[in-house]
């Protein structure tokens, strides 16, 4: 059963930040609740206060500005994202990743910001956001700061967030011109599952040369961008060799564990196979 909790639902961001400042680590933020409610039931989290942020209109912002990029507010659900034609068109890697998360029931509630704040190594939206160079806007009563998503995660289910801070929105810059992104995810079943391994890739051309960005889920303590593998495309040489080099580096840089979803050995194989497949698809398109 759920423990007894003090629930509040502020109507403005100011009110919310005030509450966070007052309760600090005794409070948890409730957005979609798809992670929070589970950990409350399992008594993994024992907050005294729950602050529901769904009634704060400005957190529902989902906005695209040509040349500037995308703003995804804290209460924007995965369903909102999937229904957005600009995201489907210009941020295909994010759209694809979100499509693999849970089922329709879950996507109706779960939020993208919640997904990054849970900071699960298996989070599917994070690799996509990483290759899109997303930034995180963090606010508190004291003010606000903006950091690259890459610097947001600090460990398994750990982030840089202070107890009195929250993520107001995620900012996704305009992707490079004519870029193409994909998310490949291996699951235990064909329907819905957490990732055994997920690979996000973004391909584009810069001065005629193919550039690639790569990030992974479920292969390290945090979602992981592997820039060393991307560098394989910076050097001259045949494209097949670059792909193999990138695959090689990716396999070296990841550090998967064995758990109930898959062995480290299998995950390493999936990193190899999925990365290669993804890169081949990307270079074919761009």
């Amino acid at each position, binding site marked *: 059963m759920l423990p007894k909790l003090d629930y509040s639902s502020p109507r403005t961001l100011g009110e919310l930040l005030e509450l966070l400042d007052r309760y600090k680590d005794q409070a948890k933020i409730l957005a979609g609740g798809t992670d929070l409610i589970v950990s409350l039931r399992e008594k993994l989290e024992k907050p005294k206060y729950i602050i529901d942020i769904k009634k704060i209109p400005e957190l529902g912002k989902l906005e695209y500005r040509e040349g500037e990029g995308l703003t995804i507010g804290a209460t924007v659900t995965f369903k909102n994202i999937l229904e957005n034609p600009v995201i489907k068109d210009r941020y295909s890697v994010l759209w694809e990743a979100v499509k693999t998360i849970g089922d329709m029931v879950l996507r109706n509630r779960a939020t993208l910001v919640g997904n990054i704040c849970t900071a699960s190594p298996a989070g599917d939206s994070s690799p996509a956001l990483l290759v899109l160079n997303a930034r995180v806007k963090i606010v508190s009563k004291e003010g606000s700061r903006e950091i690259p998503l890459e610097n947001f995660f600090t460990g398994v289910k750990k982030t840089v967030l202070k107890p009195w801070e929250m993520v107001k929105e995620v900012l996704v810059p305009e992707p490079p011109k004519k870029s193409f992104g994909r998310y490949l995810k291996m699951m235990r*079943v064909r329907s819905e599952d957490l990732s055994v391994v997920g690979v996000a890739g973004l391909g584009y051309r810069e001065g005629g040369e193919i550039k690639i960005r790569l990030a992974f889920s479920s292969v390290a303590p945090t979602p992981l961008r592997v820039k060393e593998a991307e560098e394989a495309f910076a050097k001259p040489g045949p494209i097949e060799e670059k792909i193999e080099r990138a695959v090689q580096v990716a396999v070296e840089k990841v550090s998967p564990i064995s758990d109930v979803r898959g062995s480290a050995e299998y995950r390493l194989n*999936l990193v190899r196979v999925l990365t290669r497949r993804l890169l081949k698809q990307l270079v074919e398109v761009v």
Partner: protein
Amino acid sequence: MKYVGKSIQRVDAIEKVTGSAEYAGDIELPGMLYAKLLLSPHAHAKIKSIDFSNALKIPKVVTIAIGEDFSFRVGLYVNDRNILARKKVRWVGEPVAAVVAEDLETAEEALEQIRVEYDPLPPVLDVREALKPDAPLVHEELGEYAHSPAFNPIPGTNIANRFVVKRGDIEEGFKKSNVVLENEFWMPQVSHVPMEPYTCIGQYLIDGSIKIWTSAQSPFAIRYILGYSLGIPLHKISVYVPYIGGGFGGKAGINFEPLVVLLSKKAGYRPVRLELTREEQFMTAPVRQGFYGKIKTGATRDGKLLAEKIFYAFDAGAYADYGVNIGRAAGYSCTGPYYVPNLEAESLTVYTNHPWGTAFRGFGHFEFLWAIERQMEMMAAELGMDPVEFRLKNALLPGLITPTGEKLREDAGRIDQCIRAVAEKIGWGTPPQAVGLNRYRAKGIAALWKAPAMPPNAASSAIIKMNEDGTFLLSVGVTEIGQGTVTALAQIAAEELGVPVEKIRVVPFRHTDLTPYSWQTVASRNLFMEGRAVIRAARDIKEQILEVASQVLRAPKDDLVIEDEKVYVKGRPEWSIHFKDIAAGYVYPNGNTVGGPIIGRGYYVGSRLSYLDPETGQGYPALKWTFGAQAVEIELDIETGEVKVLKLVSAFDVGKAINPQLVEGQIVGGVLQSLSLGMWEEYRYDGNGRMLNPNLTDYKIARAGDIPEEHVVVVIENPQKDGPYGARGVGELSMLSVPPAIANAIFHAVGVNINDLPISFENIWKAISKKR
């Protein structure tokens, strides 16, 4: 026929889709209390002490019970189960204490205040280990347990039952064999994952009588076992069962009912409810047993089976009160649907420190058919024969002898027709095909059979009451767990009585005080047995109707015809009387009345079923054998191990489809469950026997997105003459043999033999990598 053979709508459809159907969890009683269980963290440990004094001080905690409060055991076939753990715990998840409180929050809170001291014992966590002579004993007192005469526990070991089959001369059989092959097979424990977790309410009344409201498949089994164990006569025990949100065998036998009844007594005779969460359902509710098999098969060069030596060991977990019969059932069907002249089989049910096993749809057959159908495929490959041809060559046809020495009846189903049907529809005979660089398409088939696993005296009965307006109430003991049997029974009653099926209502609940007896809702036995009982009840009613009509119409009974809710004199339809005018007695214009309320009854037990010989397993266990076959076409990604089932074909000889749509529904649902169990489902344990995946995040079951796009269902109808309108059961059969069909297809695709379940993507990848 007007109703039999027609796809009428389920009688419970409207209630269920509108949410008005009653389930055990809907029941609220005045003064009801809530129970919560404290579960063992150890797989095997002595209980040194339990201190619940602090928990008892919490306001609104009414009582707390521990194992020592209840000094007797319960069980369906073997009396081996404690109400709560006594002296020691036998699996991670065994209930050690129960808190009863005014509300659930308090009960849950109180659990945290109970202190238990354990003295850990070495656990037995593998069925093969459990059989070793120096293995720790799960039940030291096995010799003291009462058990049904059909079973053979071996005190001083972990063997809860040893079942043996011997036919022919096995030495000679192997000597004459040109090809001999031996293989081992394994599968994990799995959960039934019913949509509705266990829920029951018990009340011990001050006059010593008992009331139970429960989501149970078998109200009469609960009543009987409880009466036996507590020494209470059956007329003082009432068991009420509304609709059930899925059972799959897990709600058969007796589960938490004795606990809530005894908690009620301890709590001052107030009703006590226990409702498991999904996590508790995984941890503390019974599971399907694990399985290990070893089969040695001998055949002639031209593919005739000559000899088979079979060893099956079922991982029963901590208790085997029901599990013993699973090993027995697998034993008497052990060869699968093939004729083997020389046979030696041993099927053991073995205690371990895993969660306790119980019945599961398929009842041992899902398990051993995995082994047999893999073995048949490997034999065919060894012989260089086509696997379909090899199976047909050894098909157990009418007139041939089953493992228990039964000559298969002439009106039995036809395994050869099932195999041919799936082979044809899957397009058997085309070679595996590469798709792109790393994918292969291939086909696989597997066959199956099963008879109801039940004691020879298992009985069913039916009551049909005629109402004053000529409508009818049909009352049967089979519970509605989703399978749809009662709809088919209504159709049978309508057909027999000659009334529209809308005029028959199946009573939607079971209440042992009012409902006619049925042994259990299990074994794919109820359409057959309740079906026959309903026919007899309907004929009993017609006899009574004719009795009255004969007086009113002034004609002898054999001159009367029943049709369209009327009775008339042969050749004189104008001399007729309507049912409604006889229903509660016929009233003449002057008030004189003949006849009275009409109640029909019927029962059915199998003819000439027998116990099996303890030395050789010979005898007559089978009410009927249902045969079937499955075929798949898969696409395999050899780099990731991912398998997609592109197409499925299922064929069953059901004798007669009373309601074709419901038959298809059972087949589609069962096949998907089989696929799910074969590919994904598995209790995963850490080294200490603790389940690692007690939730639906990590215990994967098939969902809508996992359903193959194409599923062809072939219904074959070779009627069994003593079945109702020729019907045989199909409920469990549909979930057999999909996993071996998939593994056989993988074998044809890449030459890799997978003999352990689940056939998960990772396990496939591992097998392929190992071969490379």
